[in-house]
């Protein structure tokens, strides 16, 4: 019910906005006037039908179908509307989605998420749904259905740069996670064994986590700059005050707390009886660690890695400010030029990346969850 009311309300907001060039503020175009009638009528029908299907609280499968239908209608209208509006506008004209589109998108996505969670799919179904969604998005982009939108026009001349930023962003987020895991997992095991170390280390790491990202990146700059000038060897491998190195190091420092704390929590969650039994059958400390403690603590440890991954994907944006590359470059360039589409070009992939990472990690966590009953 809520979705239908909100959906109807967002129809009143302008659906697309048409601007004379990339800087000026666009003029809103209403939902029903966005595309010629022969296109907008079926699209609006799909959208309405989908939202109506969403009303059926007790039939989650129909609700999922409804959400997918309304999303299809929404994108169809977006694609057709952009083409139609550009056809009789000036050369530098830009069409971008306006508040109405974004609200409807959020509502449909929420409807989909709500219906899906009602179905309680297993990890395999969820992975398949994710893959299907990604395929649809890729197909939509590849087919050029959205290439009339201003964000696509912003993308076209920067294809190589965007790809570069994407790879750099992945390196920043995943590379720092990897290094943090390499340092953090052994530290976590040590902290678990020695309570003195734990009491000293965990508060220190949580203080590190507290420091605002921009300040942390800022403090890294003179530190690494100094190392770079003092040791030519360090400079040769790319350690310098500005660029990739300070951003990477800052991200590693931020990642340590979730990794270490969750490793400790994961190891602690193992019942003492299990530990005793392992000792009883003559396992050595190492055998117990690798065969019992780590496998059983894995879901909690992975939860820590999930936190890190989502957090680092977001924080890597700030690397754009200190020349570290990644999608942040576009965000801050866009903010400087007040070019909304450029901001979106940086922000949307970041959000998408964080969400995909979160969903994938959730699936992994569920897979590693020990099935109670069947294992014992």
């Amino acid at each position: 019910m809520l979705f239908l009311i909100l959906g109807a309300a967002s129809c009143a907001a302008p659906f697309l906005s048409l601007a004379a060039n990339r800087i000026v503020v666009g003029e809103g175009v209403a939902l029903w006037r966005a595309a010629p009638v022969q296109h907008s009528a079926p699209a609006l029908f799909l959208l309405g039908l989908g939202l109506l299907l969403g009303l059926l609280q007790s039939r989650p499968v129909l609700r999922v179908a409804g959400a997918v239908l309304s999303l299809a209608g929404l994108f169809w209208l977006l694609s057709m509307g952009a083409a139609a509006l550009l056809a009789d506008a000036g050369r530098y004209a830009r069409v971008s989605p306006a508040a109405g589109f974004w609200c409807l998108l959020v509502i449909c996505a929420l409807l989909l998420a709500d219906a899906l969670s009602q179905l309680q799919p297993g990890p395999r179904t969820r992975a398949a749904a994710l893959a299907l969604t990604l395929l649809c998005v890729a197909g939509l982009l590849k087919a050029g259905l959205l290439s009339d939108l201003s964000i696509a026009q912003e993308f076209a001349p920067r294809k190589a740069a965007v790809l570069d930023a994407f790879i750099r962003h992945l390196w920043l987020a995943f590379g720092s996670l990897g290094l943090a895991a390499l340092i953090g997992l052994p530290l976590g095991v040590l902290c678990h064994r020695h309570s003195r170390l734990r009491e000293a280390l965990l508060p220190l790491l949580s203080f590190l986590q507290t420091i605002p990202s921009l300040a942390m990146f800022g403090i890294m700059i003179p530190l690494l700059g100094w190392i770079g000038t003092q040791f030519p060897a360090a400079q040769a491998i790319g350690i310098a005050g500005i660029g990739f190195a300070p951003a990477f190091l800052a991200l590693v420092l931020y990642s340590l707390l979730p990794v270490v704390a969750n490793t400790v929590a994961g190891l602690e969650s193992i019942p003492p009886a299990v530990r005793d039994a392992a000792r009883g059958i003559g396992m050595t400390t190492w055998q117990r660690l690798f065969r019992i403690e780590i496998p059983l603590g894995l879901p909690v440890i992975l939860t820590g890695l999930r936190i890190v991954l989502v957090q680092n994907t977001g924080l890597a944006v700030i690397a754009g400010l200190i020349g570290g590359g990644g999608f942040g470059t576009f965000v801050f360039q866009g903010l400087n030029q007040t070019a909304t589409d450029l901001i979106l070009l940086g922000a949307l992939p970041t959000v998408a990346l964080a969400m995909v990472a979160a969903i994938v990690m959730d699936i992994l966590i569920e897979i590693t969850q020990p099935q109670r009953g069947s294992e014992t």
Partner: protein
Amino acid sequence: MRTYLRPALAVLLLALVVWPERFSWLFAPFAPQGGPVIYSRTSLLSLSLNHLALVLIATLAATLVAVGMAILVTRPFGAAFRPLSRTVTNIGQTFPPVAVLALAVPALGFGEGPTLVALFLYGLLPIFENAIAGLSTVSPTVLDAARGIGLTRLQRLIRIELPLALPVILNGIRLSAIIALGTATIGSTVAAKTLGEVIIAGLLTNNTAFVLQGGLIVGLFAVLLYDLMVQLEQRISARLGL
């Protein structure tokens, strides 16, 4: 050691903010040849106050709204919205705070407004999540006892549930406030007057002295705020006998 460290850090922070010129010897080696050592375009004190005010307003507003919503969805009549609200918080928390800030600009323009809205929106989630957790872990026996001695629903909420949930809620508020402090720093890229301005100015003019100065002040604020909130949580938990 803690007992000395805290006031020492507080004094250092105060000195850095109020008498920045006194520290020029410290930052001079980092400034470019002949460049300015101490940020003087705006007084650090006013930047700090503005920064803290943004964080305070956003966190207070987020607390009121989030706790209110949490109370609603934990009542019987709001229970239908609970799964949906969980979905929203789960999805919302994967949004990077910077992205929220960047996306607020196209919608609201530059300046303090979008920063405040971004801080508020992002701050809702941890508080909401923790408030629900806190309110739903109050033990049923306690609630039964409260009903037994004749407390009305409202009385139970105000005198039993909220006080018992308070430590968990405070935990959420702390998370929110720390994130807000960090995001407000980045808010200076959308023309909000915050301490991030000092760092950004340093980055743009290649003046490490500014970067270090801003970074140090913001870092100290965050650490002290965090510590203050932890203290508060511990006091309240101790008073409740938890």
